[in-house]
């Protein structure tokens, strides 16, 4: 049976047809402007206060728009952008090492395994340099050299040092910068901030996004907020897997509700897995923690040769160890790209050679590094990571090899947007990880922060202005039938969740969903497995609506209800994730189909059949989604297969 229908192709019609270096200038020149004196009369809703949302809210308010902004956290300073460790790329070429806008563009398209839109990526690279200027002016304390100038490093296997960083807390520092800019606007009255308030649904009137329904998480009160445009900056959907490196409350509800209202969801199967996370310690595990990939520079990855070997690692002699990455990929060894390292670890564990609880882990051993460099040098280089590992596992990595396992880390897919970052619902703009815009099938290290800030500070504001200036919007109020209908629907959904009073907790459903997706739609995907998942997921969804237990009421603070509402959306999203993965019968970037690999186990793209972005139209709960393909053309970066063997 087919799990989807094929609809008409879709195209981005907003990027001007001029050489790629001129597109952004041309687009901004063609864009209509809103008279500064009139901006105050235009209201914009921004949902989310991460890098993209915080930057967008602050910038729109600076320009004079009236911004109403939301976050589910108690403060706009806490969004999960804060947890990004590594850094932010920018084509400043301060090192004079041959970097340029073009090279950053080229690396990003190639790194995305040729599944992104060239126009958008080029603009991202162009904008990157302005981001650094902006953040430095805000007081972001980037790492500096003794001369007082900014330090950069090379990151994620690229040949140039273009990554700016603030120790291991770059995301935090950039987010605090955006938060402070936003705070300034809150104080000035330009931004009306609603913390601890979660979007429940998107209000669409006459085909245009005109507002949201949101719930005050403290009082339980459900309110409508109306505006001229809605910006979704709500991050990725990695938590659909239950265990991920995302924050515990990160969720996909805002983008999923927009999807249900008509916004196409693009490439949901492109999920990024990070190879060096701390493995789960038991069934109680609530989230996973990432450790910097730099550990692979000096650590050696191995598993016991014999499945089921329960000896402690120091009792296993060299002959009984398999340094499998060094064996299979002698050229790159332990430094193979993220997805290859991740899949190899999974394969070893599937063979029963995994270590630690549940056999889901491999050793990352620094014994040789300590012998070679001395413990002091290892401490100097990795001390803070070792300490973090020790804090979480209670094991001392100087004495016992670390255990690592891959985990979901980032989602490249998201709502489909055009060059203006507008979704298929006019007036609904999507920025940051929530959209599918720039990373194709795989995101390069230190590019997520770049994209979030580029979207929020520099790309969205002029395009949003163009929308407002060129669209005649009738006045709407809360009594509009679409508004009341949407409120009724959102309220009804919560009431239904509360009334089921079944025998299973929300978390038990979420865990089961995550397990199905991780097993069948995780690091390696097969047609059989995906079909199996697509058989089970609707059952799980129905069981959820039959037997979930949500205590308490909707009229007060109720964290179980918040979770239930999010999980109900994850259950639907999980199905689309598997449909997308099933339909894409090729391997590319974060999506590895076992059927599509080279004889030596490398991912094999199929550019003839799949050089497109898959934009999915909602087909009803349990219905058949409709696929709209956006063909991708590569006029500047030529299609090539990557090879690490």
């Amino acid at each position, binding site marked *: 049976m087919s799990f989807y229908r094929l609809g008409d192709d879709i195209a981005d019609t907003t990027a001007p047809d001029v050489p790629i270096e001129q597109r952004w200038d041309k687009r901004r020149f063609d864009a209509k402007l809103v008279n500064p004196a009139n901006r105050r009369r235009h209201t914009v809703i921004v949902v989310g206060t991460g890098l993209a949302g915080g930057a967008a809210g602050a910038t729109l308010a600076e320009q004079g728009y009236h911004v109403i902004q939301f976050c589910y956290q108690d403060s706009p300073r806490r969004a999960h952008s804060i947890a990004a460790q590594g850094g932010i790329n920018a084509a400043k070429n301060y090192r004079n090492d041959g970097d340029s806008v073009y090279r950053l563009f080229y690396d990003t398209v190639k790194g995305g395994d040729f599944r992104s839109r060239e126009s958008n990526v080029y603009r991202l690279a162009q904008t990157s340099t302005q981001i650094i200027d902006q953040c430095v002016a805000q007081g972001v304390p980037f790492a500096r050299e003794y001369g007082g100038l900014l330090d950069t490093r090379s990151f994620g296997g690229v040949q140039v040092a273009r990554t700016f960083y603030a120790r291991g807390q770059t995301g935090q520092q950039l987010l605090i910068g955006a938060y402070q800019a936003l705070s300034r606007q809150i104080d000035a009255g330009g931004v009306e901030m609603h913390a601890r308030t979660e979007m429940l649904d998107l209000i669409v009137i006459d085909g245009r996004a005109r507002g949201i329904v949101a719930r005050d998480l403290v009082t339980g009160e459900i309110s409508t907020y109306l505006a001229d445009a809605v910006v979704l900056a709500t991050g990725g959907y990695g938590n659909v897997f239950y265990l991920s490196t995302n924050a515990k409350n*990160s969720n996909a509800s805002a983008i999923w509700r927009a999807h249900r209202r008509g916004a196409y969801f693009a490439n949901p199967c492109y999920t990024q897995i990070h190879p060096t996370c701390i493995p789960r310690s038991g069934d109680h595990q*609530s989230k996973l923690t990432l450790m910097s990939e730099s550990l692979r520079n000096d650590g050696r990855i191995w598993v016991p040769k014999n499945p089921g070997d329960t000896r402690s690692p120091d009792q296993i002699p060299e002959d009984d160890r398999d340094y499998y990455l060094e064996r299979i990929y002698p050229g790159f060894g332990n430094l193979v790209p993220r997805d290859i390292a991740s899949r190899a670890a999974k394969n070893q564990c599937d063979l029963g050679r995994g270590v630690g609880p549940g056999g889901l882990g491999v050793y990352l051993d620094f014994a040789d590094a300590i012998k070679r460099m001395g413990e002091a040098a290892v401490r100097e280089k990795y001390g803070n990571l070792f300490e973090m590992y020790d*804090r979480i596992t209670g094991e001392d990595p100087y004495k016992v090899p670390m255990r690592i396992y891959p985990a979901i880390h980032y989602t490249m897919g998201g709502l489909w947007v055009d060059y203006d970052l507008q979704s298929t619902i006019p007036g609904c703009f999507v920025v940051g990880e929530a959209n599918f815009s720039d990373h194709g099938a795989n995101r390069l290290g230190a590019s997520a922060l770049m994209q979030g800030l580029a979207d929020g500070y520099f790309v969205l504001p002029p395009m949003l202005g163009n929308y407002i200036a060129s669209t005649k919007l009738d006045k709407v109020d809360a009594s509009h039938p679409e508004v009341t209908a949407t409120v009724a629907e959102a309220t009804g959904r919560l009431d239904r969740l509360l009334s089921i009073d079944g025998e299973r*907790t929300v978390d038990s459903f979420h865990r089961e969903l995550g397990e199905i997706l991780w097993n069948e739609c995780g690091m390696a995907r097969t047609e059989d497995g995906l079909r199996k998942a697509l058989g089970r997921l609707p059952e799980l969804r129905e069981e959820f609506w039959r037997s979930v237990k949500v205590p308490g009421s909707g009229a007060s603070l109720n964290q179980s209800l918040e979770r239930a509402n999010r999980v109900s959306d994850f259950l639907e999203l999980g199905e689309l994730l598997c449909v997308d993965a099933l339909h894409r019968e090729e391997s590319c970037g974060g999506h590895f189909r076992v059927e599509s690999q080279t004889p030596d186990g490398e991912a094999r793209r199929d550019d003839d059949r799949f050089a497109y972005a898959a934009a999915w139209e909602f087909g009803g709960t349990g219905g058949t989604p409709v696929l709209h393909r956006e063909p991708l053309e590569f006029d500047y970066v030529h299609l090539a297969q990557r090879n690490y063997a």
Partner: protein
Amino acid sequence: MKLTLRIWRQAGPAEPGRMVAYEVPDANPDMSFLELLDVLNERLTLEGEDPVTFDHDCREGICGSCGVVINGQAHGPRALTTTCQLHVRSFSDGDVIDIEPWRSVAFGVLKDLMVDRSGLDRIIQAGGYISAPTGSAPEAHSTPVPKPIADSAFDNATCIGCGACVAACPNGSAMLFTSAKVAHLNSLPQGAPERASRVLNLVEAMDAEGFGGCTNTGECTNACPKGIPMDSIATLNREYLRASLGRK
């Protein structure tokens, strides 16, 4: 491991609260402290009781959402550790653990262990920023910043706004939080133009929120999971005096 948790239960901001004891017979030493509460909550849910409400999000010690007072100590017994990064192995089988919300008149209890920390946001809104509207920034290398200054600004900028300093301070003072922001921004050349107004406005906002005064007890810095030092408070005072005396 068997643990007894005595948890502050309070149904709402205006409701009375009390400590309630719960047994967790199956605690695992490898659990994080919040996972311990998760396990308890799963059980309470199935038993038809109201689960314990607490703030949490990233669970890797950086977002600043979580934070409870554990046996009289903000974020519990381990230094430089947020509640989410604390693990059950820090306790022993049979322990009785008291878990209470942050206490300060400026942090009202919303429910159980969750408090309202919006006062900290209002302090930042009063001037904890550098006015640099998007697009107005000069080229990043136009103003070199000496490395020691950048490093010290970074140390202060690592504050996660969790409020442990306020919770630990016998006076419920927010001096360490406020001083970290002043020390971060006032030390940088980019922050110099607003140096005086920033410190005056931040202190005024801090006082208006009802936080207590600083008596230099140092409990804040001991509780701070990011180790913001006491000399940040000296910096705030220095900047405040300088600004009050009208020195530029």
